[in-house]
């Protein structure tokens, strides 16, 4: 793809579209990551909730075991029984002691339904097991849990009265123990209350208010809080550690994320929609700004420039716009002004001469004439350009040139007297210097005329110099006119001059046919619809000149455009278009066949003209 085929507008829209698409993709990615982050946060949050709930559950167990321990530790019977095992004279009644320890299992205690009491054991001050209840869990090791034993041995004197709690791993699974001094502030030993924490695990679910399943570390399900787990739940695992850091329970809580997902989806939809709307409105606003300050000024400048290059040098490019466009427009306007000045200078140079200077192309049609020529023949500038050589001279100049020998053209110029036809019809004689010139690569000729008088003759050398000047000046003007068609009003239609010969001939022929057709249809429509004459068309439209031929008004130029045989070889197509538009405008309400045909012919003619223009450019 060539860069020239891309406009600023399409490039800008493409860039904005890319930015918009990128923004959409990024927002979708961000939404997905945001959702995942929210789920992660939810999982972390539930994990912490389970942790707190676990600690609350253990606190409740601890309080119950402490209460029971305190109750028993102040039992005088128990203190007395343990005291009897003190010292070397071991006179204690173990059976009685065991019976006392079995009492809570048999008779119950405050909070019996809140913990699962597994064992009550008594130790001496050296932490040696004295006795344990026969009721409760069997096959427990006959020693204190390792963690509690370590803590006790490391404690200082005042701290030995403080109770110790521990979740510890027995051979039969996790157990919870509370060790309290037996005998109050003056202990005789220690009392260990052992409970099964599995009994209290469902309390975690009561706190979290979510379905919770409890597993041993071997993976066996221990319990659950009987809440139903459906597909909208997200499992969150938490490991409850024993006091020594060893994993004790695996707790899986289930978070209901259906509501969260639905809210997230809603939030995502709202956010993305809002983002897209915002992006779109921003893009549209940016495009509006671009259109207002870039596209429209550029388009207006291009239009102005095209009109100027088509010949309307009096126009200027609108310089209202951004700084760069302002500078650019000013530069173009300055350049146009220079072109206009130079063109005027060239024309003024030729117009300053008193002689009539004119130039004809190989079709014998006038391509240039100065003011002297228009005043000599009595025509206006607009009228004279429609004339050909036969309208201005009675002599056949082509024959004169071809018949002249080299002696008669000493410096390439033929000096003779020509019979000229004035606009009003009278014929007069004039001294002429005729020179062949190159008109856009084809043979034309230039004529310099001076009025033939009896007392004064213009030297032929002077006419030759003029003709040479005319030739050079014309060459410049024609070159400029070829590059800038329509710039110089005094120059005829040269638009098809540089196209290939055969193509030029066929297009000229087609153009003439269309011109004649449009003009005939316009005249027919004018006459039938408005009931007016051809003369009235010329007069009212101000498009066609009206000549006075022996006191009779004639439309000589218009007549030529109505007949294919006498139609100029380079007809002024804009005149035909203007005439058709004038007629249609005046017969605007008519739906007659002729007018419809005229409209169709005009449309076809415009298409043809646009095709020729694009071919020329």
């Amino acid at each position, binding site marked *: 793809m060539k860069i020239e085929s891309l406009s600023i507008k399409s490039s800008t829209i493409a860039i904005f579209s890319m930015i918009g698409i990128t923004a959409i993709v990024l927002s979708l990615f961000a939404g997905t990551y945001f959702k995942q982050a929210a789920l992660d946060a939810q999982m972390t949050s539930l994990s912490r909730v389970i942790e707190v709930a676990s600690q609350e559950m253990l606190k409740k167990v601890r309080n119950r075991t*402490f*209460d029971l321990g*305190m*109750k028993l*530790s*102040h039992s005088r019977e128990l203190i007395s029984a343990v005291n009897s095992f003190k010292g070397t004279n071991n006179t204690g009644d173990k059976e009685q002691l065991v019976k006392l320890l079995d009492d809570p299992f048999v008779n119950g205690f405050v909070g019996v339904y809140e913990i699962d009491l597994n064992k009550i054991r008594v130790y001496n001050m050296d932490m040696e097991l004295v006795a344990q209840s026969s009721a409760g869990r069997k096959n427990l090791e006959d020693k204190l849990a390792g963690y509690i034993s370590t803590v006790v041995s490391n404690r200082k004197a*005042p*701290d030995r*009265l*403080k*109770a*110790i*709690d521990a979740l510890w791993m027995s051979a039969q699974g996790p157990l919870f123990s509370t060790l*309290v*001094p037996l005998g*109050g*502030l*003056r*202990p005789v030993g220690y009392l260990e209350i052992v409970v099964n924490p599995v009994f209290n695990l469902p309390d975690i679910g009561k706190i979290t208010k979510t379905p919770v399943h409890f597993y041993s570390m071997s993976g066996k399900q221990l319990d659950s809080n009987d809440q139903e787990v459906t597909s909208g739940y997200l499992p969150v695992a938490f490991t409850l550690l024993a006091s020594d850091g060893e994993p004790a329970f695996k707790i899986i809580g289930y978070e209901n994320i259906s509501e969260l997902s639905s809210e997230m989806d809603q939030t995502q939809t709202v956010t993305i929609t809002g983002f897209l709307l915002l992006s779109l409105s921003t893009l549209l606003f940016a495009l509006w700004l671009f259109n207002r300050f870039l596209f429209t000024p550029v388009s207006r400048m291009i239009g102005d420039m095209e009109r100027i290059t088509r010949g309307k040098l009096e126009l200027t490019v609108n310089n209202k716009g951004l700084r760069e466009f302002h500078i650019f427009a000013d530069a173009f306007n300055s350049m146009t002004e220079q072109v206009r000045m130079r063109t005027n200078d060239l024309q003024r140079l030729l117009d300053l001469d008193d002689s009539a200077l004119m130039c004809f192309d190989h079709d014998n049609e006038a391509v240039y004439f100065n003011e002297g020529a228009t005043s000599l023949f009595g025509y206006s500038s607009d009228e004279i350009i429609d004339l050909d050589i036969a309208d201005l001279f009675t002599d056949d100049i082509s024959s004169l040139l071809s018949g002249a020998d080299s002696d008669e053209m000493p410096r390439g110029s033929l000096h003779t007297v020509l019979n000229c036809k004035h606009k009003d019809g009278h014929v007069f004689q004039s001294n002429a210097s005729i020179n062949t010139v190159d008109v856009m690569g084809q043979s034309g000729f230039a004529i310099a005329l001076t009025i033939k008088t009896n007392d004064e003759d213009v030297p032929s050398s002077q006419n030759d110099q003029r003709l040479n000047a005319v030739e050079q000046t014309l060459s410049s003007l024609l070159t400029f006119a070829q590059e800038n068609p329509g710039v110089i009003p005094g120059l005829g239609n040269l638009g098809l001059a540089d196209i290939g010969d055969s193509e030029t001939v066929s297009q000229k022929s087609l153009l003439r046919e269309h011109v004649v057709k449009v003009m005939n249809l316009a005249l027919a429509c004018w006459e039938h619809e408005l009931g007016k004459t051809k003369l009235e068309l010329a007069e009212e439209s101000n498009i066609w000149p009206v000549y006075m031929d022996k006191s009779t008004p004639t439309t000589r130029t218009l007549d030529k455009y109505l007949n294919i045989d006498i139609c100029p070889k380079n007809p002024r197509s804009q005149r035909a278009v203007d005439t058709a538009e004038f007629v249609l405008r005046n017969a605007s309400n008519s739906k007659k066949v002729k007018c419809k045909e005229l409209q169709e012919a005009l449309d076809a003619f415009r298409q043809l003209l646009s095709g020729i223009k694009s071919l020329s450019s």
Partner: protein
Amino acid sequence: MFSFLFSQHHQRIIIASISLLFSSVLCADQKPYAPENIQDVTIVSAEEVIDMILANPDLIVVDSRKKTEYQKGHIEGAINILNTRLTSEDLGRISPDKSKAILFYCNGTRCLRSSDSIKKAKKWGYQNLIWFRGGWKEWTEKRLPAVTE
């Protein structure tokens, strides 16, 4: 209508009750702290209390809380006398010797009962006063032996 239903005396009681209720609600979150210290009174921690009890079996420990609170749990050997009911005669019966050490405690740093009792005892001429400012809250938090009834 209000004056028809209640006598003037009853009206005063009702208004006073309502005022008390509102002030209680308003002050619930602004319960004052016990003073940081009381002049000429020794402040001790839970561990120091144990040391003192073990070292001096005759140490008088006064629990200045309500009876219900005392029954739920108290320090071994403590005597329950609510601060508002503490009289010079009661204290004199417990400790005729005003130079003997007496330890006071209540619910903790936000309880003003023990400090009130100490101020009274100080006013009555008791010289060796000990204040367990952390009170029952500190005792239970340290999971020290408690006696329940």
